[in-house]
């Protein structure tokens, strides 16, 4: 087998060194009733050519050559060639968590740059080396807030991504968090501050909001922060569309920012792998989950980087750790780091401006359901038609329409969430505009 580098004569030589006649003797100590003698019921191994062929066939069974207006937490942005060039280097791809600092400075330096850029983008003091994804960063942030405040009640906005809220509920199941939700305003699509005010109390440890929210609308972070802080709760701000940070005011009034970086040159890849982040204020560092890289020196006084503040983590603290998380998403975070370097200060702004312009052009062709300001996605009303009907029309033109919202928001049964990015073409938007036009009634 091509992944096994030994010849049979080498195997025999090695067995002889071990004092064994056959490889089977290596397992002689296993209890007989545990050993599994039958061959695995899996087909024989195949060549590289056949593997490529197999996955080409599967790839062809998926959407190919479609224009798409899907967003809702996963965004189609252009991936600069540089990104895969860098992450394909074996030194990044095939290395382990950088515990051995002397031979891991490459990874450590890139993570330090990543942490710095996430702070610059979010306006927070510190950022960790990344989390699994945005959805799991949310309960981790909520648990962090509970540790800081000693309070376990969490109030989450209903316009936080529905699947993120489901993950939060799963983590809360065992009773460490009690999770309730507050509503949104039916006209603006922004969170309902008055509803929050009715529900918040002195047992509330965290208020969770998303901006731009699940409907794509920019929230007024400052007023939520004031309300949360008045009651001694922390404000957790979530983002799913990182490109928005190129143009939107950073959530500086938040205590914890948890987000998803998929937009930064991470392929949609049917839902993962992505990279989440948690960023926070300096005073909360020690309650933060996840890996952190710090600057220090070597014994000769050279600048060096290493993993630090590990006393928060599971391999040292075991059951008293801030989280059970062991890995970060180093390689995916590296994609985001390369993306941020390629676009830089001006590029990220220009990219955000293009997204803004495209989405607003699209909205000018449709009937936006809400009045709140939006970035690159928004909710459009179907004028009472079933979203499925419109999407079927679009599929015939090789266009995947927006996400129907009725599944999560029964009151928005006749609404669709549509996204436009720098990759969206005007001619496809015009098609969408036509598909939404009321069907002429037969005379």
């Amino acid at each position, binding site marked *: 087998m091509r992944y096994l580098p030994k010849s049979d004569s080498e*195997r025999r030589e090695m067995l002889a060194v071990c004092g064994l006649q056959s490889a089977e003797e290596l397992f002689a100590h296993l*209890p007989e009733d545990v050993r599994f003698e039958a061959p695995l019921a*899996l087909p024989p191994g195949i060549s590289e050519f056949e593997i490529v062929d197999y*996955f080409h*066939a599967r790839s062809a069974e998926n959407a190919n050559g479609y224009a798409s207006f899907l967003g809702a937490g996963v965004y189609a942005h252009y991936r600069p060639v540089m990104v895969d060039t860098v992450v394909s280097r074996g030194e990044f791809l095939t290395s382990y968590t950088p515990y051995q600092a002397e031979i*891991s400075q490459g990874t450590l330096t890139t993570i330090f740059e990543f942490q710095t850029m996430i702070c610059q983008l979010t306006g927070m003091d510190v*950022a960790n080396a990344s989390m699994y994804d945005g959805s799991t960063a949310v309960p981790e942030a909520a648990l962090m807030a509970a540790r800081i405040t000693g309070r376990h009640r969490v109030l989450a906005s209903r316009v936080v991504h529905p699947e993120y809220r489901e993950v939060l509920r799963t983590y809360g199941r065992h009773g460490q968090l009690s999770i309730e939700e507050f509503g949104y305003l039916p006209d603006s699509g922004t969170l309902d501050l008055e509803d929050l005010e009715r529900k918040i109390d002195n047992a509330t440890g965290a208020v969770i909001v998303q901006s731009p929210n699940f409907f794509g609308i920019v929230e007024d972070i400052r007023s939520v922060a004031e309300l949360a802080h008045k009651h001694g709760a922390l404000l957790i701000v979530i983002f799913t569309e990182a490109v928005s940070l190129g143009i939107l005011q950073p959530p500086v009034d938040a205590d914890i920012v948890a987000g998803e970086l998929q937009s930064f040159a991470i392929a949609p890849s049917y839902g993962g792998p992505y990279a989440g982040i948690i960023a926070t204020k300096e005073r909360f560092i020690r309650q933060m989950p996840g890996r952190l890289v710090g*600057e*220090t020196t070597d014994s000769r006084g050279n600048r060096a980087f290493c993993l630090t503040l590990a006393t928060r983590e599971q391999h040292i603290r075991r059951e008293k750790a801030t989280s059970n*998380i062991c890995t970060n998403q180093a390689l995916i975070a590296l994609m985001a780091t390369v993306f941020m370097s390629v676009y830089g200060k001006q590029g990220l702004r220009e990219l955000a401006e293009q997204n803004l312009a495209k989405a607003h052009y699209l909205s000018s062709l449709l009937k936006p359901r809400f009045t709140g300001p939006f970035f690159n996605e928004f909710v459009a009303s179907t004028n009472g038609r079933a979203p499925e009907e419109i999407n079927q029309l679009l599929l015939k033109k090789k266009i995947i329409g927006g996400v129907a919202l009725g599944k999560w928001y029964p009151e928005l049964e006749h609404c669709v969430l549509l996204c436009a990015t720098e990759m969206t073409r005007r001619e496809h938007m015009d098609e969408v505009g036509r598909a939404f036009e009321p069907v002429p009634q037969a005379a």
Partner: protein
Amino acid sequence: MIAKVRSHITQNELLLFEQSSPGKKGYQLPPLDVPPVDAATVLGAANVRSEIDGFPEVSEVETIRHFTRLSTWNYAIDLGLYPLGSCTMKYNPRVNELVARLDGLAWAHPYQPEALAQGAMNIMARLEAALAEITGMDAVTLQPAAGAHGELTGILLIRALLEKRGNPRKKVLIPDSAHGTNPATAAIAGYSVENIRSNDCGSVDLAQLERIVDQDVAALMVTNPNTLGVFEANIKSIADILHKKGALLYMDGANMNALVGIAQPGRFGVDVMHLNLHKTFSTPHGGGGPGGGPVAVKKILEPFLPLPRLKHLRNRWTFDYKRPRSIGRVRAFYGNFGVIVRALAYILAHGGNGLRNATVDAVLNANYIRKKLEPHYDLPFKAPNMHEVVFSDDRQAKHGVRTGDIAKRLIDYGFHPYTVSFPLIVRGALMIEPTETEGKRELDLFADAMASIAQEVETDPELVRSAPHSTRISRVDEVTAARRPVLKWKPGTPSAKPAD
């Protein structure tokens, strides 16, 4: 003496921020095909940010050089043996990278219509089935993002089942040889942790277990083979003791590379386990992620698996959300699909027999290393080992040299160190897992290096204590890093000079 490497020049490199200059660009966007909008008008002036302070401005050439230079400061599997114990640092096949990047897979949106995602769903279903066969379990979820995330999923499943039976119970038992993620997971799932001591062979003590297991115990989390590389010979009896009292057996599959094709956890009493796709199934570690932590369960736990579940209906795949007893989602969407693709590519390449042969070679390599190093290092547990072997620094400590020093000296010989000071039940542990993808020559070079270091400890201990000597930076001051954390670059702060 040092046969594998010789010194070579590496490039110095500043941080991106230190190379920035206003106006430098590494990008160009196409012209906008719609009218531009004024951000302040459509978003409200208060919502629009000023420029991102300190964000880099570098050119394309500088960017590629930056990351390429940094990459040369890393060690990697592609450069040689990476013998970290229980980490299973095996070769990462490159074809896996290619297939994960095919357009129809890499650009698949999780919300695209199921009719246009059949290829992706087919891949997931095929991996679920393969993992069920390999583990001997009844059902698999691919949703957890990594090993520790799989552990959490598994313990939540156990809690859900016990709740349904009327009492979620209070405690999870964990052997003292376990990975730190096990107790951390149990705590996050709302259980208190009771550590149980290993016996003289490094295994779970049956008599002690019999005494401890009562109506408060929800589960035992066991790693098998354990972190000494020793198979829990009494695993069936362990399962019986738990099951008799209504508790469940969780298996940490971190060491599954010792068992694939040889033994199926489903047949030795395990109720639920996780796998690490980035260990056993060759997906790249990438400097710390992404991973994949599928969870395999017996039938009794199947109704509780995370939403959604794949279902084959009328000749096509669909997602089933109508599962009222599910613990809910543990992650948005369906899991780390890109990692799932790579793991399946690995399984297809090996096939059933190939997977078993890989296990045999992995165990052979570990036993070979054991034989070669036994004359030089103390072997505290003598039981036969599987895919990894644990020595102690007992003999070297007498010369004032500890496992961490030996590890650093190994770097000078051109190798990544083994796992240092773990498992905790061995004082001064050297935990070595070579994996099956190492050839005889690389193993011999490693054994020679370890023997040579053992010699140096006796003749020149300071040489070892002050290692590494050949790296671009010398030993790193981790104490100061933790005492005065500097976690981001700040403009204008004169930091220490870059390494030269």
